[in-house]
């Protein structure tokens, strides 16, 4: 690294105060400026922010958007999530590979282009899709891929790829993206008309305790999937004595097949920020952070502008809405490509500039979270609900849904259906009704709640979407009769293996073993005992893993073994005379037969 680069890296550190807690931001900045974080840069950063070198490397090596090796000036990240595969990912990939003349994962010799695969980027309803640097490019085809490469070779500017703008705020001057909202079914809660400041003014007119009571009366439960009562979470944090408290909005929407938060952040960012502000008022927090997944970086200027406007209007900053002593502001923290950071304790580690390894609980964030202070982490959709509850009152909110699951749920529908997109439906709606709305009646199976949810077959289509039946963070991926379900299950299993942090044994070592067994069954080399193994090992992983990722990683296999057993049983069988089916002698002999001078043997 030239000394000039080194001094520039030092400047980047100083722009971020040269403090360890900003390491992730520093790393992102160095990555985007130098297209990589060289070993020397790691030394420089470690020296500048005064942490051990390995601490920097630990962070850099954790996030998929960061790399030690230099990436191309333009990095094309092609999403290979299941909906993209259903929509022709393979041919698009081949078109890119051919047009760029590099393999997937490669960089052109001139250092201009890198082609990579990436997990879900939140565009499942307009797949296949890719990110070109930070620019989202939906609805890809092989022709489009070739055009894109040609254009980029010409002008080298991803922003110029943007042709026809998307609907709603996607056309906003601060976004200017080709993304579509596909808002197929707006509901009465989240997408109801919004009047800026209304909810906050109502909140500050109440006491914090009353605000919490309102949220409790509305029986609001977390929309991320786990469904923990929001009011209770707030109360815990409120009761802890501390001079600093934090409100964090989890906008690290990474569950494959989920894109609802993307649409809320595009169309209802005010409700998100208002929800954070109300939470802050309720528990007495003065600082808020919105953790935005790296894939949504294109929304950053827009969101920053909205925050700015709220400050101008007294909805953020000091004495919010005229309430003396209610000071609160929000900053946006960008992620860098790590699904596990959607887990709240991992998100907090990431916020602190560390690897996104989840933490042990207890202690829970509500008592000891960000920088060891009481911290509430809420999902984007949850915070929007909070705002609506304050606007319209708990009673209105509870008109929708079921006793256990009040309100509406925002669903991201994709896959084999006619109308992929966003649906705001009341809790308690049956899966069948959702499929009818979306034109997916022909479904042979549906992934409800993304890979960490359940893969269910037609027998379960009358089950209801709510916390006490089919709980979901919002992803609904539809699979038609012609799909190879075990390959889909394998793809989701690979996703968890890639995204796990590696901290604990069951998830790190167990999931690859699950995949071995699954592949054996898929390839027709499985035996009934392998299905028992899958069930036993899956149960062990689910029960002994430390965090939510590990506890749900076996779900694609376990739920399909339950709901779609014939898929497995039809491909397994007993081996003759105690010989295992999985051993393939011919395949095992290939390398030996290839050795020079090797004659066929007498056997």
């Amino acid at each position, binding site marked *: 690294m030239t000394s000039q680069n080194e001094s520039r890296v030092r400047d980047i550190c100083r722009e971020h105060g040269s403090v360890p807690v900003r390491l992730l931001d520093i790393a992102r900045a160095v990555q985007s400026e130098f297209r990589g974080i060289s070993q020397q840069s790691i030394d420089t950063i470690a020296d500048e922010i005064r942490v051990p070198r390995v601490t920097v490397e630990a962070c850099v090596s954790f996030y998929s958007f960061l790399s030690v090796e230099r990436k191309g000036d333009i990095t094309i990240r092609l999403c290979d999530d299941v909906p993209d595969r259903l929509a022709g990912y393979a041919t698009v990939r081949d078109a890119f590979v051919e047009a760029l003349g590099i393999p997937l994962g490669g960089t052109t010799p001139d250092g201009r282009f890198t082609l990579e695969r990436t997990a879900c980027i939140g565009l499942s309803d307009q797949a296949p899709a890719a990110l070109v640097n930070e620019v989202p490019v939906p609805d890809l085809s092989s022709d489009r891929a070739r055009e894109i490469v040609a254009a980029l070779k010409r002008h080298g500017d991803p922003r110029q790829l943007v042709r026809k703008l998307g609907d709603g705020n996607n056309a906003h001057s601060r976004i200017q993206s080709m993304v579509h909202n596909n808002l197929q079914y707006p509901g009465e809660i989240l997408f109801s008309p919004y009047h800026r400041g209304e909810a906050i003014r109502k909140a500050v007119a109440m006491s914090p305790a009353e605000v919490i009571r309102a949220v409790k009366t509305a029986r609001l439960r977390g929309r991320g999937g786990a469904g923990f009562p929001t009011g209770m979470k707030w109360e815990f944090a409120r009761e802890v004595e501390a001079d600093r408290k934090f409100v964090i909005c989890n906008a690290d929407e990474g569950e494959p097949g989920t894109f609802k938060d993307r649409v809320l952040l595009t169309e209802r960012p005010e409700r998100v920020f208002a929800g954070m502000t109300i939470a802050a008022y309720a528990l007495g927090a003065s600082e808020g952070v919105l953790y935005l997944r790296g894939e949504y970086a294109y929304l950053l200027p827009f969101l920053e502008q909205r925050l700015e406007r709220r400050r101008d209007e007294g909805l953020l900053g000091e004495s919010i809405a005229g309430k003396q002593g209610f000071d609160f502001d929000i900053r946006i923290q960008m992620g860098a490509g790590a699904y596990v950071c959607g887990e709240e304790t991992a998100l907090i580690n990431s916020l602190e500039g560390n690897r996104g390894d989840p933490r042990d609980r207890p202690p829970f964030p509500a008592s000891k979270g960000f920088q060891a202070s009481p911290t509430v982490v809420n999902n984007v959709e949850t915070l929007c609900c909070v705002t609506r509850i304050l606007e319209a009152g708990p009673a209105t909110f509870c008109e929708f849904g079921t006793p256990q699951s009040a309100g509406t749920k925002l669903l991201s529908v994709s896959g084999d259906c006619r109308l992929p997109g966003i649906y705001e439906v009341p809790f308690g709606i049956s899966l069948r009704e959702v499929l009818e709305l979306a034109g997916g009646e022909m479904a042979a199976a549906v992934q409800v709640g993304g890979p960490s949810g359940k893969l269910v077959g037609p027998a379960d289509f009358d089950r209801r979407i709510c916390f006490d039946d089919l709980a979901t963070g919002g992803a609904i991926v539809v699979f038609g009769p012609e799909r190879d379900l075990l390959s889909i299950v394998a793809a989701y299993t690979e996703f968890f293996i890639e995204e796990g942090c590696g901290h604990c044994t069951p998830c790190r070592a167990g999931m690859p073993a699950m995949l071995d067994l699954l592949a054996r069954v898929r390839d027709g080399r499985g035996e009934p005992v392998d299905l028992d193994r899958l069930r036993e090992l899956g149960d062990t992983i689910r029960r002994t893993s430390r965090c939510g990722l590990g506890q749900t990683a076996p779900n694609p296999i376990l739920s399909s073994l339950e709901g779609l057993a014939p898929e497995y049983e039809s491909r397994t069988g007993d*081996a003759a*005379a*105690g*010989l*295992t089916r*999985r*051993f393939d*002698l011919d*395949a*095992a*002999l*290939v*390398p*030996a*037969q290839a*050795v*020079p*001078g*090797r*004659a*066929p*043997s*007498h*056997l």
Partner: protein
Amino acid sequence: MSRPRIATASLAGCFGCHMSLLDLDERILELAELVEFDRSPIDDYKEFQERCAVGLVEGGCANEENVATIREFRKKCDVLVSVGDCATMGGIPAMRNLVPLEECLQEAYVDGPTVHNPSGLPPGDPELPRLLDRVYALHEVVDIDWHLPGCPPSPEAFWAAVSALLSGEPAELPPSLIRYD
């Protein structure tokens, strides 16, 4: 009634397990009272004489003939026991699983300091069975009923397992007899 028959074989192992079996010393003679030895490298039966009650197999599968042998044992034995770490997990021969096969042959038959090999080719005659891509534990190739780990298993482990099997008991070893070295 005739005594139960036992067959033994060594595949990709070092014969240490057979040595440890012989380390039963006087008890070998006791054992001979109880069983009939069928096909085994310690006698001159080169193929199975009869169906056997127990097959004890040392070594993993490193080449196509190992595979043929273990399949033959599976067919001819009621209870099949993999004996020793090579049989249960590949053992030392499986260290080659971490290195490309061709590099191993190259070092032994072409690059070695005292090698005289004008052809520059490793042995490849039809009489030589082809090597497998990697060394396999026996249970990867056929169903195995019991495992006797150890490098080698102690004579006591053999004694415990064999006497259990002869009295129709499961051949589960107590932790004190489970060793991997």
